[in-house]
């Protein structure tokens, strides 16, 4: 029998810290970037254990010369890639305008997805139009890709008389069932397990639609993440479980959610869920892994976990100042580059695109956003226009009960 081990040093508490804080030199030396094309592409019926290495590497398609290489190359047509590029460029233009509008006092709050556009843009292209997405607040590109009117997005942000949410929701908390876009909640993580329930319902009904859920790496610490993976695994739900690892949860680096100990993709392995880690700034790689996951779900092979490894180039929101907790130029130094530039350069390298084409696209996007902006602002920005105050008391229940009716009368509306 062994004697009990005695401590040789006093116990100490570890609190993870990022490699660089404001004023420090930018340090991405801990980041291991697998070469493009290196990761194998297994059959969709492979087990979680057979594909386990994919949870620790990075599936990448675009190499340093922006050439698409390896087995994950989805071989998209130039038209598809241009469509994806357009979604990203419009999304970026939209973000820039709405951020500016908030700064001008035209709304209370805004959140950009700058640097992360490839995730939702590529997924929208890889999914069927009627697959149901359960987004966080950084997948506005899903709506843009699916043709939801920009003006309606802006009306929501302005809480004006035409706001589809009737003035009840914080800006960017869109909803559109018709566009397969579930109502966004500010409660982090709750949508992840709801998506699994939706997917279970689709399977229960013998439908062909699948669910696509999103969560940030920070919110994987929530119990909802564990519930979602457990239910998805137990019931083999047709759902794609996306962890968008943009490195920062407001001011907390991904290590505070446990990212230093293992990848977020690797969480799937313990549940028997095939899990992939993908270069989230590589449009083609995101498309390819999403297609693989969607094929699995549609073939009744169940859930897939995808970690999108990206970087939140934007502040968390208009209420945030990243300069207070990370080096100011960290985003520019992100080793995986910018998703728009990478797809643009790939198209240029393929002879399908030019700088002039890109400038024209950017102008088209800016014009589109400006025109929608004028339309929305003509209805009114926050405070200038709003739905009837009666709307405050509607939709709490399907039929308004007496006590809420009476409170409405008390307010005199």
């Amino acid at each position: 029998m062994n004697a009990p081990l005695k401590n040789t040093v006093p116990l100490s508490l570890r609190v993870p810290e990022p490699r660089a804080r404001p004023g420090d030199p930018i340090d991405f030396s801990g980041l291991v970037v697998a070469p493009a094309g290196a990761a194998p592409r297994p059959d969709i019926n492979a087990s979680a254990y057979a594909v386990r290495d994919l949870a620790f590497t990075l599936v990448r398609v675009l190499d340093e010369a922006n050439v698409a290489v390896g087995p994950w190359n989805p071989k998209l047509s130039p038209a598809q890639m241009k469509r994806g590029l357009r979604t990203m460029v419009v999304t970026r233009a939209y973000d820039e305008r709405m951020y500016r509008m908030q700064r001008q006092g035209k709304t209370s709050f805004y959140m950009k997805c700058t640097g992360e556009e490839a995730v939702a843009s590529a997924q929208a292209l890889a999914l069927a139009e009627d697959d149901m997405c359960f987004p966080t607040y950084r997948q506005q590109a899903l709506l843009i890709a699916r043709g939801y009117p920009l003006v309606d997005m802006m009306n929501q942000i302005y809480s004006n008389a035409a706001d589809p949410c009737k003035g009840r929701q914080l800006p960017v908390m869109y909803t559109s069932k018709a566009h397969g876009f579930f109502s966004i909640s500010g409660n982090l993580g709750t949508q992840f397990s709801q998506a699994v329930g939706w997917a279970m319902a689709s399977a229960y009904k013998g439908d062909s639609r699948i669910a696509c859920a999103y969560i940030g790496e920070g919110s994987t610490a929530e119990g909802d993440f564990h519930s979602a993976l457990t239910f998805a695994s137990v019931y083999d739900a047709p759902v794609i479980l996306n962890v968008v690892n943009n490195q920062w949860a407001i001011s907390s680096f991904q290590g505070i959610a446990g990212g230093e100990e293992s990848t977020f993709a690797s969480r799937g392995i313990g549940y028997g869920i095939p899990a992939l880690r993908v270069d989230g700034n590589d449009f083609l790689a995101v498309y390819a892994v999403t297609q693989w996951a969607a094929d699995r779900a549609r073939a009744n092979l169940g859930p897939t976990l995808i970690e999108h490894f990206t970087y939140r180039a934007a502040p968390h929101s208009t209420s945030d100042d990243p300069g207070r907790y990370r080096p100011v130029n960290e985003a520019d130094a992100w080793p995986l580059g910018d998703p728009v530039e990478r797809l643009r350069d790939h198209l240029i390298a393929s002879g399908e695109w030019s700088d002039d084409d890109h400038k024209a696209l950017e102008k088209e996007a800016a014009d589109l956003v400006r025109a929608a902006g004028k339309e929305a602002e003509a209805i009114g920005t926050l405070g200038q226009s709003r739905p009837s105050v009666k709307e405050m008391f509607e939709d709490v229940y399907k039929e308004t009960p007496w006590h809420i009716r009476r409170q409405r009368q008390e307010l005199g509306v």
Partner: protein
Amino acid sequence: MPAMNMIQALNSAMDVMMTRDPNVLVFGEDVGYFGGVFRATEGLQKKHGLTRCFDAPIAEGGIVAAAIGMGAYGLRPVIEIQFADYIYPGYDQIVSEAARLRYRSAGDFTAPLTLRTPYGGGIFGGQTHSQSPEALFTHVAGIKTVVPSNPYDAKGLLIAAIEDDDPVIIFEPKRLYNGPFDGWHENPVSPWAKHPDSEVPEGHYTVPLGKAKVVREGNDLTVLAYGTMVHVAQAAAVHAGVDAEVIDLRTLIPIDIETVVASVKKTGRCVIVHEATRTSGFGAELSALVQEECFYHLEAPIARVTGWDTPYPHAFEWEYFPGPQRVADAMKRVMEG
């Protein structure tokens, strides 16, 4: 008409609705093959199939979330939280999600789920199998809160809840599952078969949500009660020799204010009883409503008889439980006031 106990009545409600509507499905901890720890779902899996009544992982937050997702899809899920004491891991999903979904999406998405959960004391369940957390839900806009007190109402209310387009929580008084209980705990247990409300139609019927019922007419005072306390209040009236009118609220939110006000204006006195802890309990809301609506008709201060503001204690069950003696004492106090 067959005599059913409350478990059989609840089972019948789910069976009827699963037969009528393929979008109704049932899941929760141990509810599938085994039929639930209280047997409320017994036989449903065998009759309707594995995918229509099945076991869930021990994850109340996950159970509620899955039901929200299913509701958003268009199903009408009925979920069981094994004990109301276990509901707290699901609280965020209930409060922030199910209750708000219609409002925040302006009706684009809804969560028409029904959540059944056994609650209340009188079974020596200790603090984790005896709680009455209804006020944590009546405080939340967007959900309906229902508490049946007999087999007939249990079935009719559950069917109404499943057919309702809003999320509904049904707190089932587990002490009443197998027989009415008037709080005289040393008396022999009596089965539902001897009670008129155990006459339960086999088919479809509803008891409307938001409608209270006067279960005992009287002129001296009004008792507002729900669940097990409906029976305790009636026993207390006999014990006190008071001509009490006992109202079974049946639905807490939305509350049937008309029935409450009509009765209190008639009697001029009001005793509120519930098993839950007193401070910020639903009785506080009832007391405020009665005061606001009936102040000039009141001839005595409103009395509350409730569980004490302590966790539910195992060895002191009958000191904690607001039994007929305490309710009768309150009735007498109110009559003297």
